[in-house]
């Protein structure tokens, strides 16, 4: 009798301790984000914004490639169209900031819907090719259409007074990230997530279980496009100027690799990998300049190509040794934080 009570209390004590550790871990992670915001000034506020925007883009790719199993090598087109739409609405039409972002999301959705309709007919590797070609075409055609994007000079995307400061803007970006993370979580926990898993694995099985394969595929494209467009809108006002150069096709390839490195279907992994690649080009030059020994062939161009260089190295390591990406590496931690149950 007393032995049982003892065991029970010990179990309870252990769960209490576990809970404390878990909460501490989550708080520490949040603090890690908050720290640069509070003490880093405008420079770090800008960086946090950029990291959050990249994370949103990564999650957008995750919806499409991770959940629905549809590869997109032209994602920069969705993001770019969102960015230019938002800039267009803000600077040419003088629409309020919120409308610009909504317009960006809408433009991304519509673009993705069109590509999604193609994806109903064109599958697998061919879809990868089509999206790559689409991205290239969007880059050279739509983004160079002077009336819409301002041509080579780019379009201005002023912020509204409310998020004028870099700190406020960073908070806005983080808020969007939180909302997107929440929807991704609900997606996988409800019917849509299960249906998409079935569609990804076997469309015929999915359809005999009552899943509208066409609808879910288009839905995944739309949602991914919506999130990508929104990220584009945020990106436009982050930089306050949008240029076609920002959305070269290499960027899309980099993003896909970034999502794979983070680990498809792993929210935490994708956020970490995305933030890393968002910050790398900003932090790397300072870091290298601060080194006591300067590598010989350092120049502006190197800063430009080091991130792709690194992401590819990481990709190869990931594909060979842990195909689940950073998410797989972190799995023990996340399982602990969520509690022991799987």
């Amino acid at each position: 009798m007393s032995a049982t009570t003892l065991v029970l209390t010990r179990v309870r004590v252990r769960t209490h301790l576990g809970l404390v550790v878990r909460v501490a871990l989550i708080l520490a992670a949040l603090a890690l984000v908050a720290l640069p915001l509070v003490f880093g000034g405008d420079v770090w506020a800008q960086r946090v914004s950029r990291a959050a925007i990249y994370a949103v883009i990564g999650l957008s790719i995750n919806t499409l490639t991770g959940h629905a199993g549809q590869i997109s090598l032209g994602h920069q087109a969705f993001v770019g169209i969102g960015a230019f739409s938002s800039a267009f609405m803000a600077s040419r039409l003088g629409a309020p900031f919120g409308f610009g972002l909504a317009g960006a999301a809408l433009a991304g959705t519509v673009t993705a819907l069109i590509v999604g309709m193609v994806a109903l007919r064109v599958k697998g590797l061919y879809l990868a090719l089509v999206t790559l070609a689409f991205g290239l075409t969007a880059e050279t055609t739509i983004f160079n259409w002077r009336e819409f994007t301002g041509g080579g000079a780019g379009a201005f995307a002023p912020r509204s007074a409310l998020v004028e400061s870099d700190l406020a803007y960073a908070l806005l970006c983080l808020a969007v990230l939180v909302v997107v993370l929440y929807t991704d979580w609900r997606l996988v926990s409800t019917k849509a997530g299960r249906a998409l898993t079935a569609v990804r694995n076997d469309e015929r099985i999915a359809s005999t279980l009552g899943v509208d394969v066409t609808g879910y595929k288009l839905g995944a494209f739309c949602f991914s496009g919506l999130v990508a467009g929104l990220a584009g809108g945020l990106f436009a006002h982050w930089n306050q100027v949008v240029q076609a150069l920002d959305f070269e096709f290499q960027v899309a390839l980099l993003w896909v690799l970034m999502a794979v490195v983070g680990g498809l279907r792993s929210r935490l992994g994708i956020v970490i990998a995305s933030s890393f690649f968002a910050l790398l080009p900003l932090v790397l030059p300072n870091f290298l300049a601060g080194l006591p020994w300067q590598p010989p062939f350092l120049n502006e161009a190197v800063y430009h190509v080091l991130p792709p260089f690194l992401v590819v190295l990481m990709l190869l390591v990931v594909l060979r040794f842990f195909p689940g990406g950073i998410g797989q590496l972190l799995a023990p931690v996340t399982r602990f934080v969520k509690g022991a149950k799987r």
Partner: protein
Amino acid sequence: MGAFVALGLFQGAVYGLLAVGIVMVYKAKRAFNFAQGEFGGIAAFCAYLLIVALGLPYWVGAVGGLAAAVAMGLLVERAIVRPLESSSRTILLVALVGVALFAIAVTVLLAEPVPRVLPPLVEGGGVDILGAGIQPQQLILLAVLAVLAGALAWFFRTDLGLAVLASSQDTLAARVVGISPEAVSRLVWGMAALVGGVAGLLYAPVGIFTPGFMTATMLVPAFAAAVLGGMTSVPGAFIGGISIGIVQNAGIYLLGQQWQVPGASQLSVFALLMLVLLIRPQGLLGKEA
């Protein structure tokens, strides 16, 4: 208009050349080789290094460039393709995209991203064809493409060529007949890289070139050419390349010059690719639906 058709013909020869490499890898491995363009990129850079920077004879540069391309092909096969043999084809595709980005990054790291000029194989003035000034280099390109396509079409009828095809269908069967799938894989990647290298070497002198030039401008039209040709047909890739080149230049003329549409060249290639995939996905000479 005639000039654009002539330009397209010669431009298309390069697409055809790259497409032949893409088709080879697809035939043997069922993989989309997104790194195909960079075989040419590496070849061009190595040739430039040897010829212009080091002042060596042209043939040394050409051989060196091709050797570098083949070495890269074998390296890709060993380091990327083989370890990912059991992964999904999408993962392999992502990895090959990674290879292309990696190659571009390496060329930028080692050589600054400035435009370069590689001297052509044959100096001399252009020839006037349908009102377009065509360089001798481009004539050579077309000839090389024709010869290569013929040779490869023949190759796939030889015993070795059939073995390559057999290994793509059934590795076990190939092994039973006494062909090592590893050897076939090396052969295919080596040949694809060689073809890509030839494309890069011959195309670079036509204009100026920068790191990633093959991937940025040639890869998608080359894939479109391969798809148009049916993805598994070497002669199809040849015809596809020429067709894409002509359509693209017609597009530049009609859309770009007449209507001032930006990006007319990419747009016309994209439109043609979509048309093929939606209306006749098996391409012109493809066997499978």
